[in-house]
């Protein structure tokens, strides 16, 4: 029996330890937002956060996540980075077929958590592991930059409020 945390809840599985995390999450824990695209870690449709780091879970065996914290699109923070990205995704009409977008947003969230103001080159490097066959790339860039700007505004506002309160 193997144990890990899934979106804040402790879960147990008796699936073979070589089973990729993606399939345990989809077939046993019934969270379908993370997708299968290649099974080889090449497209990023299966991206989740493991201890806060974006990981391609179609090639990540369950054995590797024992005791770790796994976050899927369903558990992405409803405030902060996740919410800002999702709002930008809707406003920019990023999605076409939408199939890869959970993975795109999870990769983008890990990027902005680590680097709130990425350059275009940093953005491209962080997102290059995620394929979008519909070709939404220009909009993905716009949405990440727009979310980063929104978060920076929010941070300014929060800091200003904090100063006001302390003054």
């Amino acid at each position, binding site marked *: 029996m193997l144990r890990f945390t899934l979106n804040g809840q402790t879960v147990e599985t008796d699936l073979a330890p070589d089973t990729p995390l993606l*399939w345990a999450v989809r077939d046993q824990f019934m969270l379908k937002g993370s997708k*299968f695209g*290649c*099974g080889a870690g090449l497209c990023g449709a299966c991206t989740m956060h493991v201890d806060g780091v974006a990981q391609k879970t179609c090639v990540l065996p369950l054995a590797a996540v024992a005791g770790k914290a796994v976050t899927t699109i369903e558990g992405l923070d409803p405030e902060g980075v996740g919410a800002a990205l999702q709002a930008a995704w809707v406003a920019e009409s990023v999605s076409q*077929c939408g199939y890869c977008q959970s993975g795109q947003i999870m990769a983008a969230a890990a990027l902005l958590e680590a680097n709130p103001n990425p350059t275009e080159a940093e953005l491209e490097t962080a997102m290059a592991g995620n394929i979008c066959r519909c070709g939404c790339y220009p909009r993905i860039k716009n949405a990440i930059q727009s979310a980063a700007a929104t978060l920076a505004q929010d941070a300014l506002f929060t800091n200003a409020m904090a100063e006001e309160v302390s003054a």
Partner: protein
Amino acid sequence: MSTLSRRSFLRHSALAGGGLLVAFTLPGCSTPPSLPVPRESGDFVPNAFLKFTADGAVHFYCPRDEMGQGVTTGLTTIVAEGLDMAPQRLTVELAGAHPDYANPGMGFQVTGGSTSVKEHFTQLMTVGCQMRALFLAAAAQDLGVAESALTTDDGMIVHGENRYPYAQFLSTAATLPVPETVDLKAAADYRWIGTAFPRLDGEVKATGKAVYGIDIDVPGMEHAVVVRPPVFGAKVVRYDDRAAKSVAGVRTVVEIATGVAVVAEHFWQAKKGAEALTVEWSASPLDGATTASLRADYAEALAAGGEEAESTGDVAAALAGATKTVDLEFWAPFLAHAPMEPMSAVVHVKGDSAELWAGTQGPGPAGALVARHAGLEPAQVMVHQTYLGGGFGRRGTLTHVVEATQISKATGTPIKLLWTREDDLRGGLYRPASLMRIRAGLDDDGRLAAWDAARAGSNITPETIRTSLPALLPGMPDGVVDFMVGLTDRLHQGWVVDHSSIEGLYEDYAVPNLAVHHATKEHGIPVTFWRSVGHSYTAFAKEVTMDALAEAAGQDPVAFRLAHLEHNPRLAAVVAKAQEAWNGWTPAPGRHLGFAAHHSFATSVAQVAEVSVEDGAIRVHRVFCAVDCGLAVNPDIVRAQMEGAIMYGLTAALHGRLDFEGGAVKQSNFHDYPILRINEAPTVEVVIMESQEAPTGVGEPGLPPIAPAVANALYRATGKRLTELPLSDALRLA
């Protein structure tokens, strides 16, 4: 030149538009199936498209399939405009299978050919306007006022200062006759059509809540993976399933028509079981084939001349008398669609009924296929349509639905079948490879005098007949289907030119002497519609040739094209719009511009690409795109489709190739079938021509110009006239 002569009309088959099949339509089952619209008491369901509920909700049953092209937003906007109610207020449902959801341009419930907005615009505008008129009549009766005293505003009946929601008049509306004729809303009164607003499916797709075929889970469901032959045409001789059955979770192994299925409790177990299965396959005529051997066969067919598809004037004499000539041979490889969601379906065959859950480009045909292979009537099959994780033509062929049906029939359990990415790339179907040759000549004035074009390769129509006839004509016995397929095959060997094979090779520019030939060469490799179909390769040949001709004529490439478009005003207008970008565009140092234009699916597109070569690698920095698609229902979705088609086309232009080695497909996953990534994506500027003409398609027409635009820029960058796709390989070998 765009008018077909009677002869060419007879000689071109037109399956892509469904014309050929309509002629063979047989009467369906005797009782019309009930609408797949769930209803409770108090609901008002006046037709297949709309359901009004007492709480004020309005459900729109979208007849076309959402594969990313934005059809759920576009068609909702049209019906909502007629209804005079904001599209955001409607709840969009993905319609199940029913004849009322047929594509008006095809007669079948199929999404493809960039037809959805074009074919449904008038139908859904009429439905919306009829419902608005009905609510006005009901309100007049209930309020005891003249209809002329009433108007509407965003889902409300307005009487002076008073506003009443449509829902207030539901019960009266349900008793009144739907007006047979109704004035359609005038374009000047549109509130939502022509306005850019975010897609209606944006939120479910940004939160992981959108449901695709792969996401379906039903009680008792088992997972299947099918082992298929490594070479097309091979059959199972025998198999050994002992090792497969010893994999934990594997429940059973079933032989089906296309291979051997391993059924397990979970997908991963089924996949491990499939890897442990040993299958002996029969020989195939394709054994030993390589890309080089296939291409040599096409070259032989091309040299033999093929069948005449078009002829005007005397092309031989005009070429002989030309001042300058261009003679180029083009190659475009086999390509897979590679949608992000591999093929998947859930089927449950029960005693006297069956259910299907899948995202397909044809829920009607899909249900009919389930019925056929389950031994049921189509009316006994319930079809649940889901979102499609990409289509691009691939989800119009439903082999995976047939496979899931055959497995479920054998096990009696609900079966989720999933193709792996390797299955997707190696199991067909493909954009056919093409060898093309264009010989063109200029007269003394630098005008196009002769255009002699030919294409060799396989045709998509026989395979389409093979896969779609059983779906479209449920009652037709297998023997008759086989006969029809054989007949179509024979017709294309020397009698009829499959129009899909040559479309786009010759139509756009004025030329007095024209000849078009097609040489069919079939190898049993399954091919089908691939985003923009024949245009995906013919535009490359045509537009690279036009660039070479402009150079031979000593003319600017854009001006040269415009000079041959006087008869073709809408294409001329987009070329002129792109000319403004071209003339005002100074590329950054080391970068070069290329131009191409193409008309397909009733839409005209012109593109300029800014390209550089850095350390031997092609980099496309920026693309300008002008498009005339008539009235743009949602301009932002038109832009998105142009952006997406350019990216899809760039994958093909720069990287895309499927090769054959020892009869089998060589590539297997995204490491050797690379897809354009975000760091390779250009910025795209789209200009939509102002138009009140009827809307035309946008899913496909943005694709054809991008490969030749990049090739033409590479010629300026390197001096090398690249005529083979993909361009990255061509440049390396040039």
